[in-house]
């Protein structure tokens, strides 16, 4: 791992040479191999960090011989308690006590080993023999201890930074089930996973991605369940990520997804540890990114976006009902505006006579064609949603009231839109929020615009064509090589037990076969046989 990479684009070099001072020429000045002199090593650190005000260089003398040593760390990323009590105190004071007790004095040659073995009262320490590795550790919040006479630097874990506590999930709230959500600290997140599943087969592997951000990215799977091919594929795709910075799981998602030309999410994003763990146990792989409270779960099928954790926590009838509701709501959200336009402008005969006459009567004074009217209203509601989402909660509600009630009512009174259109737009807006996954909801809201255009051109035939095109797109989508439309296309009879219906737990004795788990049974196939009762 290199601190600075050579610029690949030749243009960059020119720019750097023209502008002075150059961005970072430290690499040219500094020899990155470590020496055994504290002063020299310290100079190397200072060449990089000397300009930064939060970098701390603490020089001190060790023992009776006065061996020069130094601590290098970033203020704010470390726990100063640990540094004061467990490092500095033991190195500056307790070590002299030790010397006296053993009646020997530490020599420069053996100082490093002595300190490593006797004098640092911290659980997790490491060694670094290159400046690169050392610098990375320092930048992640560890303390570098430079000792005279050693070409290695001791890395002491004293991480401690302000972090958000584990709190309730914001985007995936639930009535039943655990209320904890991932936070921005990777270690906390992995701990949350371990708390939910104590299987030692659950593997958490970490790699660093991002040329400059050096973000920790962990992928989690359960050995013995997850398809090895899938793990390989995940590793392969993660290693292809080559960018400056990884700030969020969403960025990883865009790097590893199969099709960039699709509005539909091809990985599942969740901030719930319970969702993550149950997906892991179904044979999927989760990807966690430091600084992001979201986990990616791959592979994802369309049906997963209609599942909420409560489906499993509640009784199966209720879970199935809720799922059915979500599927119909999604169809409603995507197709109803288009169907309305098609019926109103092309096939008024489709409506019962009283309804047709009522809608026609309400539209008599509307100056716009139905398509323009619907388009205006849909855009308005999207604007309201977006502005409501970005504003503080208190103001967001006001916007909701102003938009929903005032604009809606005023538009009808002003004769710009008909009451039936307001009703329709409101219903579709509500329906589009029923889907538990935010990104899937957005995709559905997006596709209704092309559908509306098709409906305006060709009527119901256009809507039918739109439906066909949508389905073609969906069946040709893949998520990590797995079919996106399982278990509908191709039909996987076993998996349909946990699809629109969520059958009783004792019937779900297999993991989803479409994910190709190594171990397909998640319970004894016939739980009643051995118990001898129902």
């Amino acid at each position: 791992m290199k601190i600075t990479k050579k610029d690949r684009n030749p243009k960059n070099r020119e720019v750097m040479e023209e502008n002075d001072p150059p961005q970072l020429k430290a690499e040219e000045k500094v020899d990155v191999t470590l020496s055994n002199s504290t002063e020299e090593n310290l100079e190397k650190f200072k060449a990089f960090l000397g300009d930064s005000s939060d970098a701390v260089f603490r020089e001190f003398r060790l023992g009776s011989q006065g061996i020069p040593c130094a601590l290098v760390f970033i203020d704010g990323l470390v726990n100063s308690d640990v540094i004061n009590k467990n490092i500095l105190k033991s190195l500056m004071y307790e070590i002299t006590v030790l010397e006296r007790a053993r009646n020997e004095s530490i020599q420069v040659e053996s100082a490093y080993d002595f300190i490593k073995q006797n004098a640092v009262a911290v659980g997790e320490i490491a060694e670094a023999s290159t400046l690169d590795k050392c610098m990375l550790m320092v930048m992640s919040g560890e303390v570098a201890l430079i000792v005279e006479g050693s070409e290695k630097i001791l890395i002491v874990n004293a991480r401690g930074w302000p972090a958000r506590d584990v709190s309730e999930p914001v985007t995936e709230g639930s009535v039943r089930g655990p209320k904890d959500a991932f936070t921005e600290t990777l270690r906390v997140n992995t701990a949350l996973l371990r708390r939910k599943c104590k299987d030692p087969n659950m593997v958490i592997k970490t790699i660093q991605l991002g040329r400059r951000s050096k973000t920790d990215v962990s992928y989690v799977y359960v050995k013995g369940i997850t398809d090895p091919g899938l793990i390989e594929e995940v590793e392969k795709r993660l290693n292809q990520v080559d960018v400056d910075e990884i700030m969020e799981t969403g960025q990883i998602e865009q790097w590893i997804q199969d099709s960039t030309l699709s509005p539909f999410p091809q990985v599942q994003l969740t901030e719930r540890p319970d969702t993550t763990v149950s997906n892991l146990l179904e044979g999927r792989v989760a990807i966690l990114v430091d600084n992001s409270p979201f986990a990616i779960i791959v592979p994802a099928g369309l049906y997963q976006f209609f599942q909420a954790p409560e489906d499993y926590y509640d009784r199966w009838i209720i879970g199935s009902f809720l799922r059915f509701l979500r599927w119909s709501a999604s169809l409603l959200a995507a197709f109803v505006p288009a169907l309305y336009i098609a019926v109103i402008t092309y096939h008024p005969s489709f409506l019962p006579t009283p309804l047709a006459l009522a809608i026609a009567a309400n539209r008599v004074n509307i100056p716009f064609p139905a398509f323009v009217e619907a388009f205006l209203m849909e855009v308005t509601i999207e604007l309201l949603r977006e502005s409501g989402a970005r504003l503080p909660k208190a103001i967001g509600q006001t916007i909701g009231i102003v938009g929903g009630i005032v604009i809606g009512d005023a538009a009808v009174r002003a004769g710009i839109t008909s009451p039936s259109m307001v009703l329709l737009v409101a219903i579709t807006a509500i329906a589009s929020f029923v889907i538990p996954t935010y990104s899937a909801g957005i995709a559905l809201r997006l596709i209704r615009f092309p559908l509306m255009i098709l409906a305006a051109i060709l009527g119901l035939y256009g809507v039918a064509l739109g439906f066909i095109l949508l389905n073609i797109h969906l069946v040709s989508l893949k998520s990590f090589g797995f079919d996106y439309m399982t278990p509908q296309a191709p039909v996987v009879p076993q998996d349909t037990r946990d699809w629109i219906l969520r059958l009783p737990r004792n019937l779900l004795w297999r993991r989803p076969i479409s994910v190709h788990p190594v171990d397909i049974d998640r319970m004894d196939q016939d739980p009643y046989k051995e118990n001898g009762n129902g």
Partner: protein
Amino acid sequence: MVKKHDKLGGLQYISLISTTILGVIVISLPKIAAESAQEGALLSTFLAGVLVAIFAVSMNILGRRFQKKTVIEYLVSLLGKPLGKFLGVILIIYFMFSTSLVLRGFSDALKGLLLHSTPLEVIMVSMLFTAVYLSLNGINAIAKISELFLPIIILSLILVIGLSINSFSYVRLRPVLFPPLWRTVKGMPNVITAFLGYEIILLIIPFVERKKADIPRTLIGIAIPTVLYILLVIMAVGAFGLRPSQQINYPTIALARIINFPGAFADRFDIFFVILWILAAFTSVANLLYISSLSTVRLFGLRNYQTFIYILTPIVYMLAILPQDLPEIRKVNTYVGYLGAGISMLVVGLLIFALVFGKKEHENG
């Protein structure tokens, strides 16, 4: 694990056969049957289904003798290069004519039913483009779409049949229950054209998992349209009477037109049915377009079928737009029907030939 091209499953095999057969013709089938077979409408539909099943099974058996080979290639290995290639060309012509016929039939019906003043060309081109989009995605996508739409198509027909049961009268049905044999046989060639498209079996067998493309599945694939056709004939004749059924252009739509939509938001079931019927027509057009280009590619021994879709699409469009009026379309329909029947007979002949003389090519493919 990450397979680029999965083999097709059994259900996909069944639905490919069924959706290709169930197409434009479902809306006019009772008329065709009643017109050509008169009192034998019901029996001839049934017998046509049986005959098609026999053809389909022969195609299946023949296809499975040559693993990894489509009809285009095994014709050559069975009959020698000149004759085999010639028959291959005839097959391609047949598939292309079938595609254009289905496309034209669809566009004409839709124009008459829903979009009276939209130009025929627009309907055709939009449908063709959608079919091209699907065909370009390959056999897997086509199979999945078939699988996805087949239940919808079946359900829509069952709904039409079930909801119009109020108008059904046993007395009106009685004349077709005791069919004269001669009329039945005479009507069969026309009725068989309603099953047009089952020849897809000739080409898809290499893509299906080896054990899944068996005879029972082939029979189910044929049985689904046959049963639906029989029910449609029963319903149409029972609701309208035999002679009126001959007069009504789209009896299935007429059945849908006497249904009041259950529920308050919509009134006319026929429009709802037409929308679902568009799906049926689409799967036929797309499947036929795909197998036309596939067979062309195989004839030239090339790999990339996608180029040929681009080449074939304008030709199919021209063929579809060429007939000027209803009689001409019917004439083309009849000829294509005869061609299809001829091909099917040929396959049976080939099968006997292969069984007697041919060596097995199971292993080397």
